[in-house]
């Protein structure tokens, strides 16, 4: 099953190495990982999408992450009301004739064309993973030259109301 886990970490040298090393050591599969600064200086947020077999495995992952000295807080936000977004850059083959067709795809997705070359255009799209998959599918017939995706970054919605039953993995009892 797919889980989204966020961790607040000390922005110290080697912290990404510590966390990814831990995933390797304990045989967890990371689907995506994104890291960036938060509103607090010196603290970064990591967002992982992981694929685990069962509840025990995700519980282990959370506990092992929490054990890292540089990790301040770990939350599994999968079952909470979350805002999860990903950004993708897609370079599509495009001649003069197809450019307007591509435009017709880009607009309803609220994506944008951020670069135009003689034989290609680069589309930037932001949204949930399913939306990004959808636009990639639509653009594929034109010929995709390159894709770069950031992976999901996410946190819980304001007020933190959960949309489904909240599964708690408590670190302390």
């Amino acid at each position, binding site marked *: 099953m797919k889980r989204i886990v966020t961790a607040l970490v*000390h922005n110290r*040298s*080697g912290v990404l*190495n*510590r966390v990814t*090393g*831990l995933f390797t*050591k304990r045989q967890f599969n990371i689907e995506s990982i994104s890291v960036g600064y938060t509103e607090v200086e010196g603290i970064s947020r990591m967002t992982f999408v992981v694929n685990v077999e069962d509840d*025990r495995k995700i*519980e*282990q992952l959370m*506990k*092992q992450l*929490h*054990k*890292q*000295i*540089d*990790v*301040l807080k770990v939350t599994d936000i999968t079952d909470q009301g979350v805002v999860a977004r990903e950004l993708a850059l897609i370079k599509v083959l495009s001649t003069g004739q197809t450019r307007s067709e591509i435009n017709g795809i880009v607009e309803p997705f609220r994506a944008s064309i951020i670069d135009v070359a003689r034989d290609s255009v680069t589309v930037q799209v932001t949204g949930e993973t399913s939306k990004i998959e959808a636009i990639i599918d639509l653009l594929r017939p034109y010929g995709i030259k390159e894709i770069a995706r950031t992976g999901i970054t996410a946190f819980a919605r304001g007020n933190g109301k959960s949309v489904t039953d909240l599964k708690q993995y408590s*670190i*302390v*009892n």
Partner: protein
Amino acid sequence: MRAKLEAEPASQAQAEKVNGADMLMKALREEQVDILFGYPGGAVLPIYDALYKAPIRHVLARHEQGAIHAAEGYARVSGKPGVVIATSGPGATNLVTGIADAMMDSLPLVIFTGQVASGVIGTDAFQEADVVGITMPITKHNYQVRDIKDLPRIVKEAFHIASTGRPGPVLVDIPKDLTVQDAPPVKEVEMDLPGYQPNLHPNPLQIRKLVDAIKVSKKPVILAGAGVLHGKASEELKNFAELYELPVIHTLLGLGGFPADHPLFLGMAGMHGCYTSNMALYECDLLINIGARFDDRLTGNLATFAPKAKVVHIDIDPAEIGKNVTTHIPIVADSREALLKILEHEAVRGDTEEWHRHLQAYKLENPFWYTKTNDVLSPQLLIEQVYEMTNGEAVVTTDVGQHQMWAAQYYSFKKPNNWVTSGGLGTMGFGFPAAIGAQLANPASKVVAFVGDGGFQMTLQELVLLKELNLPVKVVLLNNSTLGMVRQWQETFYEERYSQSLFSLQPDFVKLAESYGIKGYRVKNQEEAECVLKEALTSDEPVLIDCLVNPKENVYPMVAPGKGIHEMLGVKP
């Protein structure tokens, strides 16, 4: 979490410049370090220069691995962090086995490694290795000092992390140029560890659940691990077991936490544990694990481990709870704190009379056994002899393999912190240097190192330290000219194809001891052993006894890989 360092009077600071290495010595003194285990080299020359003037004892091992295993022995016996210094590159990589060993067995170590100068890090400089990267998965935490003004804080944090919560090794990597830089004056050192807050106190609700579970249990059992020793909870464990009349089982590393001669003690459980303990784990309806991590050598096949039991797990490390065995009552706490809280409750026992009778019958019918022969020396008998002659009060260290299991089976520990062995990592070559550290930690104690001829040859260069430091360690070498445990597995599971497990040539261990200036003996049978042991164990000098033991002897009972611990081989002759 503040500690005051003596403020340097400004005038004096000007008169005598302090560099990074001096600063390190000062920080070590602040942590009450009185002994270092190490080996010098290029990148730590300034540190060794500062050490030259510092009032800290340094034990010069002959190999970095010897130094770190000695530090582990020291930590295990003294309860204080063992402190190790090695140079960059090969010095540091030679420590890797010891660091991994300490991580697995939760031993507090603080390790300082030199690093090439900041300016050339990352250029594959002479004796450069990415030690922080290499040791990341085998340390509780590690640091590379980037600015000399951070050093006092890092040292303070390193000792704090190593010795609190679940203990473990912490490594501090120090680039050479920082150790010769002028160090700014330090007045107050404050730790900055918001992400590290070990939870010592149990949730009272969970303790209540445990106490209630005991009331209704007909077949309860305590499984006590090394967490009892780390938490200094032996006394509380004894009170708890006696008050509720609960039988006690130990893990390999927990031995000594509960007195082996106590009527409630069943014995060690696991792959080579005793019949009664393994069966008690299989049959119990309430399993109270205190500070053990359900290691696979203890549990055997998890599918048939304690199948009928409600499992209580008390551990200071929440990640150990539920990792291998489904737990019904998890209690995150320091072992002693948890036991003290349990003892606050009124003790109501369940109806366990039948259970105790049942276990006593098991105990009587299925003791450890071996065949006594006159012509060859039984290794088990040898250990029993040492046990009797030392009244079970010696500090015992072992290597890894058959002799380790026999020592665990036949040397009955009455007191905590007398047992030093490599459990989790199973490090051959551990036992002998660990004995050196154990003797240094406890000079008045009798220290016996049971070693095999395989493991001993991995670190025997440290023999020189016995003479040099006049440490009266008794090295009892159980010499069967084979890698006994490998041979036993090959006999049992590989149709007696003894691939590379029989030594065709051995050194003369007596002459070897003599060449290091140590008295050496060789014994071949029971009478010789008795005579020599009597002399050796009462002597106040270091001794090596080369005991030629039966090479065909196997460790029993034995749980075959993949089997449950109730499915033992060789329970009876």
